[in-house]
């Protein structure tokens, strides 16, 4: 079976994209990816030197997985059915049932088993989201929001991806809306989303999160040449760049996506001042891009030159100032 009226749309970010496509399909057509991201309070910053993935400290430019989805649903009064399974057979059967009822289903899965990704992208990243919108014989029809077009995967491979092990284990998690709310205003949702992001960026506990986190990372980076061998320092830098640019962020560590959100919010709320703030956020995004560019050059050089790392640290310090100032002013307007 195929759900004919399901529309695939390519998005920058998988979680916002899946949320968007599902809500669009289930009767909320006015949403866009930036709105989902903004209402879901997706923008964030965190640097956790002790949480290491393959020996490299973790940096994030977004809120934890699942939060955007949850928040957008509760703000817009959408009831989602979320299920996970201990046995793969049950999980696949539940998926088939939902598709039989003509319901597109969002699923958490591991990128490692998705063969439509180019080989170099297939890491054990278990918090990827995609949608199944039909089944043809032994193949599932898949709409993966970060891909340009729809695709198909065999049943056993989808099962492996849904029941990947490791952290975080998806346990076959699947979700679809069962009821879309009425009487929830998008204006309030936008306001609340902005408030929440201001709170996250300004009031998160130092030193690891929010604007504190950016400054903290800056200090760490400046000290890399003294603490790490050049190779390792380059690898750590590379990971920051990847988190910022490569992993479906829409550029500049989600900052451009947020700027697009502010611009749409300006029109919906009829507030020209948000338009100006959007432009400022674009500048902040550009500054992040400059940082990534400079970091890539340092990384390529691999000499572990102290002054170049200190410059990068300084750039991050500046970004911390910019974002602190930005969100302080945004908060005052709300």
């Amino acid at each position, binding site marked *: 079976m195929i759900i004919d009226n399901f529309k695939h749309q*390519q*998005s*920058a970010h998988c979680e916002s994209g899946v949320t968007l496509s599902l809500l669009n399909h289930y009767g909320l057509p006015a949403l866009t990816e*930036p709105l989902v991201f903004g209402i879901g309070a997706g923008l964030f910053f965190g640097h956790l030197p002790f949480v290491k993935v*393959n020996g490299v400290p973790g940096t994030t430019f977004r809120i934890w997985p699942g939060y955007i989805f949850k928040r957008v649903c509760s703000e817009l009064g959408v009831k989602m059915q979320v299920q996970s399974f201990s046995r793969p057979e049950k999980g696949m059967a539940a998926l088939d049932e939902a598709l039989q009822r003509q319901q597109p289903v969002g699923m958490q899965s591991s990128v*490692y088993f998705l063969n439509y*990704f*180019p*080989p*170099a*992208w297939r*890491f*054990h990243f278990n918090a990827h989201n995609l949608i199944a919108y039909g089944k043809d014989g032994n193949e599932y029809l898949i709409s993966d929001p*970060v*891909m*340009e077009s729809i695709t198909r995967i065999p049943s056993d491979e989808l099962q492996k991806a849904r029941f990947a*092990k*490791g*952290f975080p*284990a998806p346990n076959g998690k699947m979700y679809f809306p069962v009821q879309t709310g009425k009487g929830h205003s998008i204006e309030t949702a936008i306001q609340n989303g902005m408030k929440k992001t201001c709170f996250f960026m300004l009031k998160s506990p130092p030193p690891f999160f929010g604007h504190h986190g950016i400054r903290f990372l800056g200090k760490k980076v400046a000290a890399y040449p003294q603490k790490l061998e050049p*190779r390792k320092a*380059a*690898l750590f*830098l*590379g*990971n920051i*760049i*990847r988190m910022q*640019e*490569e992993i*479906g962020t*829409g*550029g*500049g560590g989600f900052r*451009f*996506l947020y*700027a*697009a959100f502010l*611009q*749409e919010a300006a029109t919906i709320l009829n507030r020209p001042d948000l338009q100006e703030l*959007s*432009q400022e956020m*674009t500048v902040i*995004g*550009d500054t992040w*891009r400059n940082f*990534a*560019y400079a*970091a*890539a050059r340092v*990384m*390529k050089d691999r000499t572990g030159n102290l002054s170049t790392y200190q410059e990068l640290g300084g750039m991050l310090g500046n970004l911390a100032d910019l974002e602190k100032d930005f969100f302080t002013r945004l908060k005052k307007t709300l």
Partner: protein
Amino acid sequence: MEKDQVPQDKKIIHGEDNSLVKVLYVTDKNGKYGTTQYTGWEAENLALSQAWDDIDEKIEITRQRVLKGELSPIAYYMEKSLMDLPTLAKYVGLWKFRVKRHLRPSIFKKLSDNIIQRYAGVFNISPDDLKHSRIVP
């Protein structure tokens, strides 16, 4: 970033094109936001290819150590599957300390066919290859 400044740098890794056409949020001449597609950017491509260089080197070092008899082939296939010890332990459904022991060649030799089969299943190789320590690329 403005639309006409968007880079279109191909991601070449392991000598092959690994580009993924992605969505980027950009402004037009009047500062209005929209999306555009792009194949990649030099900075992020470099970061990814560096990460792979590191992985490839780790695999090669482990391969050499397996050939010298310092580690069991499980160590090689673990690196090859981009796993670390906790992840592999979850996949085979064994305690971490047991998997760690299985990395020692002397203990690996004594493993039952059942356990070998479980590892082979996770690594997607034939149990026979694993049992006889064949290194399949």
